[in-house]
């Protein structure tokens, strides 16, 4: 009797250790799913998490993201760890078909085996199954055979695995692993080439994270360019931005707001520090004149005698928040003076933010208090062009002028009632 109860006790404690281990593994998997921001593409607004159905435009047609909940019929419930791994790191589904590289498997390829297993455990055991059939893609039949993707992979997808760079410390290498891998930052921030491939997947190449236009937003240059990149941001600035969406240089907008809400605000301080250490190591793509504050604009606006085109419009529509100094109230309301988005050679984000404002940014359940309102109803294309051109030439900013045609094009493409499907739109 005593022996029996002893066995029972030992068994129970073993089981609870196993349960705790499993819980640890799924918690780690959940963390990794956040770091990879899987939910951004594999869900639709108002839909069930990870059930897929988000439509994305690609150069060959519209595809829809898939159900990655463990439902055996419509999701990945029948996937073994090997199946899961092949899809995640090589872009090959369980039935052998090649995934479109809108799925960032070329980035996920660097993931470690342990992390793949933890992610698998999380999806299989902690994500509730949702029965929701995948939507068909509307890629025309002559373009729909998937075998060319194998060729694409051979040409462009990096070979799996992460090789730590011995020239850098462990923190930097952790940052490289997160940025190049799970974070798949390059999917938006690295320019794409002729076959829509990201031009580079790693720190060694100057195109990596050099900024790219996607979906009428200019995803910023994340390298050390002193004017148009993050060259003046400290590691603490980068950490603050990824945690809260704001720092003294800039505030998040567009799909970066969602990346922060769903992913980076959940990362540990150590991981954010690793990402920052990695990003500040990426050299600038070109030498730029550093931004220097010039008080002339503020003096002219203060006296009410600013007569540069756009100055009066700025005074009437923008100055009450962004101030005559262009310095606004960071980290709450972003400055325009010296802001890399204002200085960006590609004005798409600046135009887009003026026309369409910013969405609420919720960092760990806490919504931000200040938001850019829309001006698409109040301002004409010519007025927006004048205001934006004024911002790009004031307070020491030096960036090319913007035309009313550029504004008109973005206004048309971002019309809220449009059913146009845009590349990689994150919700």
């Amino acid at each position, binding site marked *: 009797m005593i022996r029996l109860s002893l066995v029972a006790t030992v068994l129970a404690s073993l089981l609870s250790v196993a349960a705790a281990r499993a819980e640890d593994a799924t918690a780690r998997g959940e963390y990794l799913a956040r770091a990879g921001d899987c939910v951004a593409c594999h869900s639709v607004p108002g839909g069930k998490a990870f059930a897929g159905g988000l439509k994305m435009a690609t150069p060959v047609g519209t595809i829809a993201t898939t159900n990655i909940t463990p439902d055996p019929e419509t999701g990945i419930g029948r996937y073994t760890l090997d199946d899961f791994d092949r899809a995640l790191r090589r872009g090959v589904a369980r039935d052998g078909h090649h995934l479109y590289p809108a799925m960032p498997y070329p980035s996920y390829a660097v993931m470690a085996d342990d992390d793949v297993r933890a992610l698998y455990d999380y999806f299989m055991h902690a994500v509730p199954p949702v029965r929701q059939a995948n939507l068909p893609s509307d890629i025309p039949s002559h373009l729909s055979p998937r075998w060319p993707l194998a060729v694409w992979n051979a040409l462009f997808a990096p070979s799996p695995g992460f090789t730590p760079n011995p020239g850098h410390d462990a923190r930097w290498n952790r940052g490289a692993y997160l940025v190049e891998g799970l974070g798949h930052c390059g999917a938006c921030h690295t320019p794409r080439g002729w076959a829509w491939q990201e031009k580079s997947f790693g720190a060694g190449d100057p195109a990596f994270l050099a900024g790219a236009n996607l979906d009428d937003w200019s995803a910023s240059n994340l390298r050390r360019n002193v004017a148009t990149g993050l060259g003046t941001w400290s590691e603490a600035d980068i950490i603050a931005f990824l945690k809260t969406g704001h720092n003294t240089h800039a505030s998040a907008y567009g799909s970066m707001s969602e990346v922060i809400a769903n992913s980076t605000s959940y990362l540990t301080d150590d991981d954010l520090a690793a990402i920052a250490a990695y990003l500040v190591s990426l050299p600038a793509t070109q030498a730029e004149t550093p931004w220097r504050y010039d008080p002339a604009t503020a003096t002219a606006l*203060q*006296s*009410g*005698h600013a007569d540069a085109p756009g100055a*009066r*419009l700025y*005074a*009437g*529509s923008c*100055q*009450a*928040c962004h*101030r*005559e100094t262009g310095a*606004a*109230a*960071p980290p*709450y*309301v972003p400055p325009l003076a010296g802001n890399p988005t204002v200085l960006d050679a590609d004005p798409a984000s600046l135009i887009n933010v003026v026309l369409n404002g910013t969405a609420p940014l919720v960092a760990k359940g806490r919504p931000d*208090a*200040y*938001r850019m*309102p829309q001006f698409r109803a*109040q301002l004409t294309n010519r007025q927006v062009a004048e205001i934006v051109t004024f911002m790009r030439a004031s307070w020491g900013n030096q960036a090319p002028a913007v035309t009313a045609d550029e504004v008109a094009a973005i206004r048309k493409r971002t019309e809220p009632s449009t059913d146009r499907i845009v590349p990689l739109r994150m919700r």
Partner: protein
Amino acid sequence: MQYVIEVNGTARRVDVDGETPLLWVLRDKLDLKGTKFGCGAAQCGACTVHMDGQPIRACQTPIASVGTARITTIEAIGQTPVGQHVQAAWIELDVPQCGYCQAGQIMSATALLTHTPAPTDHDINDAMSGNLCRCATYTRIRAAIKRAADLGRT
């Protein structure tokens, strides 16, 4: 967190989160209810106050960003000659309808007249474009700004 801000010439101490909008501090902590909450989103101008003489939206001004700047609200607008002319013109022409937007209108108008004593229609349009009025008193506002400019000349 403790902040000391200068409002209408007096140092005021408040204990609020740095992110709190100046408008909340003015109305709820300092009981200066003349400044109105319209949209809370930089869209209407009802919350306009002066920061070092410049019109700003109090709803979009975190208290942490105020620093040593001088804040002037509608309660103290009559302390300058320009403000007095604006008040007189507003009364003479009976500008307000419901009145809700008017504190903000007066703050913007006073800032305009302070640096541009004889504004053209174009100046008025530009300076007042951020202040909405549901009652559409725009023509009376324009006339009153011109009247206040006249009062300033004599």
